[in-house]
C-alpha cells in the first residue's frame, strides 16, 4: 500500500503531496504571526506613549543579524540547487553554511537578550519590551526548529540521497520554504521592533 504522489507530481494538480502540505503549514504560520503583529498594532495604537525601538534595542546588532539571516536564505537556495544539479558535496557545504548562519543569529540574539537582562529590562518592564520578547522569542523558536530540520537533512536524513534522490530533493526544498518564512518573519520584525 503506497501513498501516491509522495514524490512525483499529480498530473492534474501539478504538485506533490509534500509541496501542498508545506504551503498550507506556511499559511497557518502567517496567520500565527499575523495575529501577533495585529496585536502589536492594537497595543501600540492604544498606548499613551510608545518608546522608539532604539531606546532599548541594539540596532547595529540587529542589522548584522538581518544580513546573516538573509545570507542563510541564499545559501539555502544554493543547497537545494546543488541537489537539483546532482552535486551532493556542494549541497552539504551550502546547507552547512545555512545551519551555521542560523547558529550565528542565535548567538547574537543571546548577547542581545543578556544585555537586556543585565540592564534589568524584562518582559514585565513595559508593553514594548513584552511584545519584543514575545515576538523575537517565538521567532527564535522557529529558527531553532528550522535548524533542527536542516541539521537532520545535513546528517542522518541525507542517507535518502542514495536511495531516493528525487524525494530527498523535495524534502530539502520544503525545508527551504520553511527557512525562507523564518527569514521573512524577521524581515518584518526588524523594522517593526527596532526601527519604527
Amino acid at each position, binding site marked *: *500500500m503506497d501513498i501516491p*504522489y509522495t514524490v512525483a507530481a499529480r498530473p492534474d494538480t501539478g504538485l506533490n503531496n509534500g509541496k501542498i502540505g508545506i504551503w498550507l503549514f506556511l499559511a497557518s504560520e502567517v*496567520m500565527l504571526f499575523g495575529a501577533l503583529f495585529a*496585536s502589536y498594532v492594537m497595543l501600540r495604537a492604544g498606548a499613551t506613549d510608545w518608546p522608539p525601538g532604539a531606546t532599548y534595542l541594539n540596532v547595529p546588532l540587529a542589522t548584522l543579524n538581518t544580513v546573516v539571516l538573509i545570507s542563510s536564505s541564499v545559501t539555502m537556495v544554493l543547497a537545494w540547487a546543488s541537489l537539483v544539479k546532482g552535486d551532493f558535496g556542494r549541497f552539504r557545504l551550502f546547507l552547512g553554511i545555512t545551519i551555521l548562519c542560523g547558529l550565528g543569529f542565535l548567538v547574537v540574539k543571546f548577547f542581545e537578550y543578556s544585555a537586556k537582562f543585565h540592564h534589568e529590562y524584562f518582559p*514585565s518592564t513595559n*508593553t514594548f519590551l513584552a511584545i519584543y*520578547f514575545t515576538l523575537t522569542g517565538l521567532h527564535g523558536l522557529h529558527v531553532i526548529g528550522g535548524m533542527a530540520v536542516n541539521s537532520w537533512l545535513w546528517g542522518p536524513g541525507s542517507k535518502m540521497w542514495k536511495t531516493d534522490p528525487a524525494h530527498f530533493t523535495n524534502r530539502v526544498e520544503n525545508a527551504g520554504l520553511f527557512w525562507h518564512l523564518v527569514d521573512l518573519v524577521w524581515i518584518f520584525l526588524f523594522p517593526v521592533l527596532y526601527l519604527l
Partner: protein
Amino acid sequence: MAQPTAAVPHHAAPETHHLGFWRTYVFSTDHKTIGIQYAVTGLLFLLFGFSLMMLMRWQLAYPGRALPLLGSLLGEARMPAGIMLPEFYNQLGAMHGTIMVFLGVVPLAVGGFGNFVLPLQIGAPDMAFPRINMASYWCYLPGGVVMLLSFFAPGGSAQSGWTSYAPLADIATSGQTWWLFGMVFLITSSLLGSINFIVTTIQLRAPGLSFFRLPFFVWAQLVTSFLLLLAFPPLEGAAILQLMDRLAGTSFFLPSGLVVSGQALAATGGGNPLLWQHLFWFLAHPEVYVLILPALGIVAEVVANNTRKPLFGYRSMVYSVIFLGFMSFIVWAHHMFITGMGTTMATFFQTTTMIISIPSVVVLTALIISLWGGSIRFTTPMLFALGFLPMFGIGGLTGLPLGLAATDVHLHDTYYVIGHFHYVVAPGTIFGLFAGVYYWFPKATGRAMNETLGRLHFWGSLVFMNVIFMPFFVMGLAGVSRRLYDGGASYAHAQHVLQWNVVSSVGAWCLALAQLPFIFNFFWSAFRGRRVEANPWEATTLEWAAPSPPPHGNFETLPEAHRGPYEYSVPGAGRDFVPQWEAARA
C-alpha cells in the same frame, strides 16, 4: 488517467500480520484506526462533559441544596457537605464548554468521521501523511489529559468560561495555565490534521473523481479543514500572549489601573482586554462552522441515501459551503456588540452576519427540499438526520436576533444565547454525529447497530433535548444572565421563570438515561451485531466499494469514479442506486 504508483491493483490480504499490537491498535498510522481512536475518545469526552453539566444542573435547579450521595464524594474543596461552591460551579462551566467543543465534538466530527470516512470516500489507500496523522491524535490525547488533570491543580481547573476572557483569566488560579497548555496541544493536533485532510482531498482522489463528483461530506470536511488551518493560529498567538501575562508578568490583556478585590493590581498595565476577545473570536466564530459543517456533511449523505434521490441543488450546496467558509472569517465581532464598539463597526459586522446566514439557509433548504417526493426509509441514521433539520433550523433562526446589534444588547449574555447555540450544537451537530455513527458503524465494524435500540435512543434524545433547551429561550427573554451560580434565584426579575430551571435539569438527567441504549448498542453491536456485506445501505459513494471493515490499504482494487455521488433512482436503471464505482449501468 492512470496513477503511476497505485495503478497495480493490490490484493490486500490483511497486511496487519507483520505489525505488532502497539503499531496496530495504539500507535497506528492507518487512518481507519486513528479515526476510531478519535471517535471513541471524542465520545468519552462528550459523556464526561455532559456529566459536568448534570452536576451544574443540580445547583441550578436546587441552589444551595446538598447533592445526595455524589456530592460528598467530590471533596471539601469542591462541594463541602455536598453543597457546591461557586468556584467549583465556575470550573464546571468553563470545562463543560471547553471539553464539549474542543475535546468532544470537533475530535469526533473531524478527527473521527473525517479520518475514517474521507479517504474511503475519495478512494484513497490512506491519508497523504499517515505518520503526521498519528501525531495529530497523539497531540490531541495529551491535550485532553492536561485538561482533565487541571481539575487537580491548586485552586482547581480553569474557571473563566470556555472563552477565557481577560483580564479575569489573566489573574485566575493556576488551572488557567493548564488550560492554555492544553489548548496549545489541541491546536497543534488540529493543525496537523487539517493539513492532512486538505492534501489528501486534493491529491489522493481516485481516478475520475473530479471535484464536483466529491460527496458533499468531503466538501464539508475540506472547508472545515481550511477553517481549522487558518483560524486556530490566532488563538495560539492569543494563548502565547496570555501565558506571557500569567508566567512572565507582562500586561498584554491588563489595562492600567486595574483594581482586584479593592487592591491595585501589581502589573505594568497598558494592555487591552478587548485584544483577547478579538483574537479569541477570530478563532471561535469559524469554530462554530467547524462544529456544524461536518454534521451537515453527514446529514447530506444520510438524506441522499435514505430518500433514494439525488441531493437537491448539490452544486449550490457546495458553492454555499465555500462562501460560508470565507465569510466566517469576517463576522467575529458580532460576539462583541456590547463591548463599546462604534456603530460603524457594529453595522459592518451585523451586515456580514446577515450575509453569512444566506448560505446556511441555502444548505438547510436544499436538504429539506431533498426530502420532497422521496420514498424515505426511516432507518435510525435517517431519524437522526430528520431530527437534525428542524433542530438546526431553530438554532440558526434564533441566532438572527443575536446578530443584530439592537436586539443583541438585550439578549447578550442571557440564557437565550445558551439556548441558541445549544440548539445548533446539541440537537443539531450531535444529532448529525449520531446519524454518522449509526450510518458508518457497519463500515467500521462489519456489523450493523440494533435498530430498536437506535429508535429508543433517538426519540428519548429528541424529546429531552427540547425539554432542556426550550426553557432557555423563556429564561433568556426574561433577562436571566447565563453565568449565575444560583440560576437567577437572587434576582427579582428572574422569579417568575425559575421553575424552568427544574424542568431543564430533569430533562438533562432524563437525556442521560436516553443515552444508555446507545452506549449498550455501541458495544454490543461491535461484537454481537448482525453481520453485513460491503454495502448494506445500498449507497452510491466510494466508501461502500471497500469491504466492511476495510483492510489495511482499504480497497481490493483501486476504485474509479464514473459519475456523480448521488445517482439514486436513475430512470431506466435496474436498481434504485448506481454506485460511483460501477463502469456500466446495471
